[in-house]
């Protein structure tokens, strides 16, 4: 009995130690970036242009990250929600449904660099566009669509059967039921899914290397509203190096005198943004839940 009791105490201590260790590592990681960023950080960092000789900013690349997010979601959200509706409301148990699910599993396991290669082959080479934000967005859609589709499907399935039954019993069609009875309730989960997916899109780099391009933008003239002009930051037909890609670049070519500081601060910004997305997806979810459940 003694041995068993000692073993129990040791095991408990080890498990606590593991948990403590992991927390410490996490704090160390976040702490490192906070400590490194604070001395050199200023708000203008977020908006000013990069520089080779001085401590430049990340304005253009941050813009690109946001731009890519919006562009990607523009495609992904409608398809994701519609697809989720199909899977939750119309799909049977046949081979087609299984094929769709299998495809979802497959895509979610493909390495993002391979998705990037695919994006390159299709949206850069085959179409002749070269490196474009559009190409990058479509590539990002490749693996974010299945994700959002699954999250939407779950959100829609979570709507209680009673709501549907009530609507149908009043003589509404299936589509009317979906549109007016199910979706408004599922919107909470769907929005949560959108925000979560956004976090993933924001942090992605590997898939963008060879689709949206690698070159560091120097300066963006936001007054240029010509969507077809590759120099306009509003155009989807241009190089669009994002913040994540920019950080990755710090490891290869010399980016100028302040590479380390810039990369550290950029990392901090990235972490904050992605965490912001993840956290707000939860709060937003809870907030919307309360709104929708009739208060």
């Amino acid at each position, binding site marked *: 009995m003694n041995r068993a009791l000692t073993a129990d105490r040791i095991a408990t201590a080890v498990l606590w130690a593991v948990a403590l260790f992991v927390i410490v590592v996490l704090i160390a990681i976040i702490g490192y970036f906070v400590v490194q960023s604070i001395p050199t950080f200023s708000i203008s960092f977020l908006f000013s242009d990069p520089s080779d000789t001085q401590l430049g900013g990340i304005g253009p690349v941050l813009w690109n990250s946001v731009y890519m997010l919006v562009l990607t979601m523009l495609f992904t959200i409608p398809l994701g929600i519609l697809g989720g509706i*199909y899977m939750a409301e119309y799909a049977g148990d046949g081979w087609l449904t299984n094929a769709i699910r299998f495809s979802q599993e497959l895509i979610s396991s493909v390495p993002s660099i391979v998705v990037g290669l695919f994006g390159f082959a299709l949206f850069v080479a085959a179409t002749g566009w070269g490196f474009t934000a559009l190409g990058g967005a479509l590539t990002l859609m490749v693996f974010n669509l299945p994700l959002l589709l699954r999250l939407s499907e779950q959100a829609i399935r979570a709507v209680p059967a009673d709501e549907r039954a009530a609507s149908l019993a009043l003589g509404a069609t299936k589509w009317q039921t979906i549109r007016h009875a199910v979706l408004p309730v599922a919107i909470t989960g769907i929005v949560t899914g959108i925000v979560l997916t956004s976090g993933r899109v924001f942090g992605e780099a590997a898939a963008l290397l060879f689709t949206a391009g690698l070159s560091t933008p120097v300066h963006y003239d936001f007054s240029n509203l010509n969507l077809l002009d590759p120099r306009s930051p509003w155009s989807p037909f241009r190089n669009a190096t994002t913040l994540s890609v920019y950080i990755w670049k710090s490891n290869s070519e010399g980016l100028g005198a302040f590479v380390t500081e810039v990369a550290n601060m950029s990392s901090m910004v990235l972490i904050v943004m992605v965490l912001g997305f993840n956290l707000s997806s939860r709060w937003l979810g809870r907030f919307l839940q309360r709104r929708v459940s009739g208060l």
Partner: protein
Amino acid sequence: MTTIESSASGAQPGLRARLDLPRRITLAAALVVIAVVVLLLGFIAWRGVQLFIGAGVPITQIFTTAWQPDPLSAGTNYGLLPFIGGTLAVMAVAALIATPLSVGLALFLAEVAPAWARRIVQPAMEVFVGIPSVVYGWLGLVVLVPFLRTQFGWLGFTTGFSWFAGSLVLSLMVLPTITSISYDAFVVVPADMRSASFALGTTRWQAIRHVVLPAAATGVITAIVFGLMRAAGEALAVQMVIGNAPVMPTSLTKPVTTLTSQITLDMSDATGTWNEALWTMGLVLLLISLTFVLIVRRLGNRRAPE
């Protein structure tokens, strides 16, 4: 498949009923997923085999260890083993590092932690997941690599860029995945079973070791495989710290390479056959991850009959 038309909708009843537009539209959206998969597999496979079909490189050559892709030097050889070996080696050691920590953490959360501790650790896991891959890579580059070089140079870390650095960084990234799936496996073990063990006078660790762990074994294995799957997929962080030396992985302290790293390094500049070899590497990477998907499916099916 007919729908009951409400007269309030105002549409022609018969036509709508036959078309069922909403169903078709939503189906089309869902089918995009299949289309994408088919296209992706197709493109990668097509480009990947060009090395053999177009450039005439024999398939057996990719299983050699010499990587000399430069067409300008004599004796070009497209041996992919260093990259395949490197990818698998980095993955394996990462799993070795991450698994005990992850399973331990999952056990902690499921069996030992009081509510307040769970409320700290579980969100911490989510933070871990949220940190983008490039940030881990950057951190490895500026903190881990110099640290290994200066403090552990005596172990053999000449530059710090090494197999071990790659695995360590990768283990951080797969830790949350293995933890959360293992946790799910532990939590599903019925409380009854633990109670039965306690009623027989066992300690908590005895119950964990002899009842919970065996019952959750398949789930934990699935967790590890999922972790490995993610490891195979994580590109850039590893690339930033492993040194990218196209040699077979022999020493933990020396630079190695992976399929992903070489692709990211060479893709911009490589042309001709060299370029095609990179596509073949992409295809190999794809095949490795497909293998994992099949393994996970097999594991899932084995659990189902219970």
